[in-house]
């Protein structure tokens, strides 16, 4: 008798576990520090769906992980950058988005929809967009003394710079300094950028794509690359840290919500997308992490001071010479080769 009740208990636990797994979970895979805790809590409270949240610090790592997990362990919602949306779309890793299930898709900025990486937004819903530019600590560096990427090469910055730990962004800097496009697919240009970047390495103190604001706040770096949202957050903690749109052009990027083909909780993924599409939620996200929302409904709700904050919402002058990152096709192998050489090289 005892044994049987034990068995019953085990069966109950198993049953509850499996329904838990089937209905009430959302496996969300996002960039680190890219979604306020409060938004997850709000979603969980409202829907009763538990969010299992995992983070990555590079598109490459996210892609490798997604390729690796099987159907039983897959994620339900992922947030890749444009050039990985197109790559994953071409490779059949994504499930098409059923627009009928979306509420608020029509409020998204048409300028950010139907782009080259996903015509018709068949597979992706824009989440946030931003730029990779320069940060300086004005306590250590004279304001106005840095206006271009090439200024980072100055010998006074020996061991004082931060670069993001991101292949495409770092090469964007090398390529733009030489006057090439940050999306170049010409192996000669990429090699030239690599050679140029090797002369920047002595100035590099740290590569960081997890939370690039931290070395500036810790006092470890005086200048270097940063994402605008991280600069926005850093400025909030230490007003001496300022964001600069370099004259050669910042790198622009956009990250989108996509549903992997192997997702197990597709309906929950849609519910989360709809939650994020709500104007008040989009507003909360943009306010807290400092990237620009593609949602015009959220934009209308924003406080004027944030709406006019050029770090988060650049004006047309700031956007001069900027480029949106796009898929470079097979040239990515050339980038990878030189990226590895750049990082493994000793000085």
């Amino acid at each position: 008798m005892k044994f049987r009740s034990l068995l019953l208990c085990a069966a109950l636990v198993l049953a509850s576990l499996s329904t838990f797994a089937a209905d009430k979970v959302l496996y969300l895979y996002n960039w680190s520090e890219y979604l306020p805790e409060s938004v997850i809590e709000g979603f969980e409270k409202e829907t009763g769906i538990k969010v299992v949240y995992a983070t990555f610090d590079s598109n490459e790592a996210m892609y490798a992980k997604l390729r690796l997990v099987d159907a039983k362990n897959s994620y339900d919602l992922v947030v890749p950058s444009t050039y990985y949306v197109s790559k994953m779309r071409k490779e059949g890793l994504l499930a098409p988005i059923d627009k009928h299930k979306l509420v608020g898709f029509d409020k998204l900025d048409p300028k950010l929809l139907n782009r080259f990486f996903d015509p018709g937004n068949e597979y992706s819903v824009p989440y946030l967009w931003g730029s990779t530019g320069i940060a300086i600590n004005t306590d250590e560096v004279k304001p106005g003394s840095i206006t271009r990427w090439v200024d980072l090469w100055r010998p006074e910055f020996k061991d004082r710079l931060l670069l993001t730990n991101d292949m495409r962004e770092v090469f964007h800097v090398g390529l733009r300094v030489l006057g090439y496009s940050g999306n170049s697919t010409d192996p000669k240009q990429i090699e030239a950028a690599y050679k140029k970047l090797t002369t920047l390495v002595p100035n590099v103190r740290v590569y960081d794509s997890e939370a690039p604001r931290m070395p500036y706040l810790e006092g470890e770096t005086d200048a270097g690359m940063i994402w605008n949202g991280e600069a926005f957050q850093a400025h909030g903690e230490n007003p001496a840290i300022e964001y600069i749109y370099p004259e050669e052009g910042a790198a622009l990027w956009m990250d989108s919500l996509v549903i992997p083909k192997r997702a197990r909780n597709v309906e929950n993924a849609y519910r989360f997308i709809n939650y994020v599409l709500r104007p008040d939620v989009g507003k909360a996200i943009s306010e807290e992490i400092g990237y620009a929302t593609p949602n015009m409904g959220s934009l209308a709700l924003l406080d004027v001071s944030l709406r006019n904050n050029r770090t988060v919402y650049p004006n047309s002058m700031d956007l001069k010479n900027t480029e949106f990152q796009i898929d470079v096709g097979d040239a990515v192998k050339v980038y990878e080769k030189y990226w590895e050489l750049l990082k493994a090289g000793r000085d």
Partner: protein
Amino acid sequence: MKTRTPFKTAVLTVTWGWMIIFVLLPNLLVFSSSFLQRDELEFVRLPVTLENYTRLLDPLYGGVMLHSLWMAAVTTVVCLLLGYPFAFAVSRFPARLKPLLIFLVIVPFWTNSLVRTYAMKLLLSTNGIVNDLLITIGLIDEPLRMLYTEGAVIAGLVYILLPFMILPLYAVFEQLRRDLLEASYDLGAGRWETFVRVVLPLTLPGVIAGCLLVMLPAMGMFFTADVLGGAKNLLVGNIIKNQFLDARDWPFGAAASLMLTIVMALLLLAYYRSVKLIRRRGNDVALA
């Protein structure tokens, strides 16, 4: 003696099963991938090639390997210099205090080493606790630049690996017979001579075991180098991690990790040989 109890069979099955599933199979997978080619979609594909190994011979990777060995060696020496006197001192404490002291050495293991590495960051950063303290007591005016240097990585490695040096050393010091030391003094040897000719040879197996336990992981602990060294690829472990996670070149990553395994195997072989040598010498001395 050949009777097999069910218990014995069960234990053997579990042990062997464990070793085969979690040690042998993964290593076989790594071994076989290292001879394959990179594939964009499935990670690896045929045909068999030696290309990954020839790539390892590139001076670039040789440089990383040597640098990694150097960092690991410095870590080991520092651990030895700290651990040896410590283990000796603990072995001299009253018997009832010893378990407590060794327990204190083990306590940090209860916290994940990644968390402890991030804690080191708080200590070492320019606006961090150590600099604040030194400036407050007036020892320095300008903060020291400690974080994101090789020194910071070595400090992190020492912090995490020190117990692996202390524990084997403590074990040999516990077995060190006090009467041998007294005999040495009685026969006219001074402190220094007793240390060099009696204590050191008797504790050498512990020294070598501790050095191996520190040196081998020190080459692979990529997260310490990432967090405290600024992701500048200081260790072989970083190269391997990048191949698997970022570059998606599994065959090359597998080849690199196999090379690391071979280096470790050679070091273990050297250990085995040296212990044998020490034993034989010990016997010779005893016979003479």
